[in-house]
């Protein structure tokens, strides 16, 4: 059973603001999902290497040759709050 506190901690890490209903629901869902997932601990993984890639590739590198960048107004065209040719955000230092 995963604790409510853990849910709140993980929500903070995930930058999600959850309502009390959501917290309760997710606490239940995660607990039952993890019950199933915990069956993995029955498997003996002694000496087994982890798989990150199924394709055996290495050293895939690119030449250091410039490609055209986007026009600035294109870069900013999708920004929720463009300002002075930049992306504006609330200042981290304004945080109380």
């Amino acid at each position, binding site marked *: 059973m995963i604790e409510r506190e853990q849910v709140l901690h993980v929500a903070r890490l995930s930058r999600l603001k959850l309502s009390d209903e959501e917290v309760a629901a997710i606490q239940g869902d995660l607990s039952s999902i993890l019950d199933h997932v915990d069956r993995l601990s029955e498997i003996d993984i002694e000496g087994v290497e982890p798989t990150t890639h199924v394709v055996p*590739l290495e050293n895939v590198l690119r030449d250091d040759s410039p490609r055209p960048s986007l026009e600035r107004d294109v870069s900013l065209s999708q920004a929720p709050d463009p300002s002075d040719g930049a992306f504006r955000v609330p200042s981290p230092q304004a945080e109380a």
Partner: protein
Amino acid sequence: MTESDLTAATAAATTGLIASGEVSREEVLEAWIQRASGDDLNAYLCRVSAEQAVKGTEGADGPLAGMPIAIKDIFCTAGVPTTAASKILDGYLPPYDATAVRKVAAAGMPMLGKTNMDEFAMGSSNENSAFGPVLNPWDRSRVPGGSSGGSAAAVAGGLAPWALGTDTGGSIRQPAALCGIVGLKPTYGSISRYGMIAFASSLDQCGPITHDVTDAALLLGVLEGKDEMDSTSVGIEGGISSPSAENLSGLVFGVPADLIDDGVEPGVRSVFEATLEKIVALGGKIEEIALPHADHGISAYYVLAPAEASTNLSRYDGVRYGNRAPCNGLVDMYEETRSEGFGPEVKRRIMLGTYALSSGYYDAYYGRAQRVRSMIVRDFNSAFSKVDFVVTPTSPSVAFGLGEKTEDPWTMYLNDLFTVPMSLAGIPAISIPAGLSAPTGGGPDLPVGFQIAAPAFQEQRLLEAAFALEGAIGFDETPERTK
């Protein structure tokens, strides 16, 4: 030739008509735009004008030039709305095209529009779309499967000749099965992922959703290839040619009996067994095999995929693109934007994945799941030392009712029981329609999918076998079309 004839034909047949000059590209496009405009399945999130559709296809005159296509809304399309069915990207206009999108355009294929899906491809029923569920053309009270539900429903419902889908744990194969059409998940690395909005990067793969195996081969031939924009892409050596096999003599098909032992609908099981007999009739051999760890696939998958998803989805923060919620302060901006922008299933998986990666839990969950993945890879390797293919039902059940499985997440996740192991192993797998069966709870006869999996990069052999079997099955049912 009438519009309905034109749009009833397979892509291969239609391209033949274009080549012989019997119909013009314009006529074909017009006919399909007409069909797409009649979308009553909520299959499309956005449809484009004829002018927009042909952008980038000008001058192309390959064999597929003029053959329109529907594109899952998970692919970035320059200047065309791309949302991954999420509110957080509502109104987003990508500044670039996905490699797969460039390739179909370069082949001269007009884009009909962007198809609906589960939000960020997280789901097996298409009920997780922020823009409403997609209806199954066979029975509008039922789901088309997911996450590529819009693409599958559009093709099955005659709203598109074929479509691009993506598959992370079954998102091409399962909806294709539930909609009675063909869906192919190629080997991981055979098609570029560049511009494909990431769900779980080590599993995501693009693939064709089509009426038959021949169309699937044609489309795969266009899509596969190494891409310098994707470090993990390799392409398929020798490319892909149109399949022509007429029998299966000398080929051995492995059945993981333990895996498909329980949880399979009786109707699905009987169609599956009937199909095994057709394989034998074609000269193929059936052998029981063991995939000892395959039944842990779902557990491993639901650690790995959410973990990767939790970091892939962190970029949706309301800073550079997408929507920002009203907020005061920086942390508030992140939390409001993401809480408002993501749906329940996406939040659930972000939470699950973040938990699995958080300090103290990595080894117990992510690290362990990666090792179990290695063992599933081994299982397939040893199986393929004895057999040419591994076959299973694509999905444990036929299409289920809207809202039927939304209560308990794990029940929903079990839809991918037979498709997830191949995703974890990165091997190619195709689902072809094998017959009809009534759901256990009663209801109309609905399509059953048959899954065939092959060793990595053996798409050509896979397609040949599927083609031969397709001929023997002779599945020609289609859902009733709306005018």
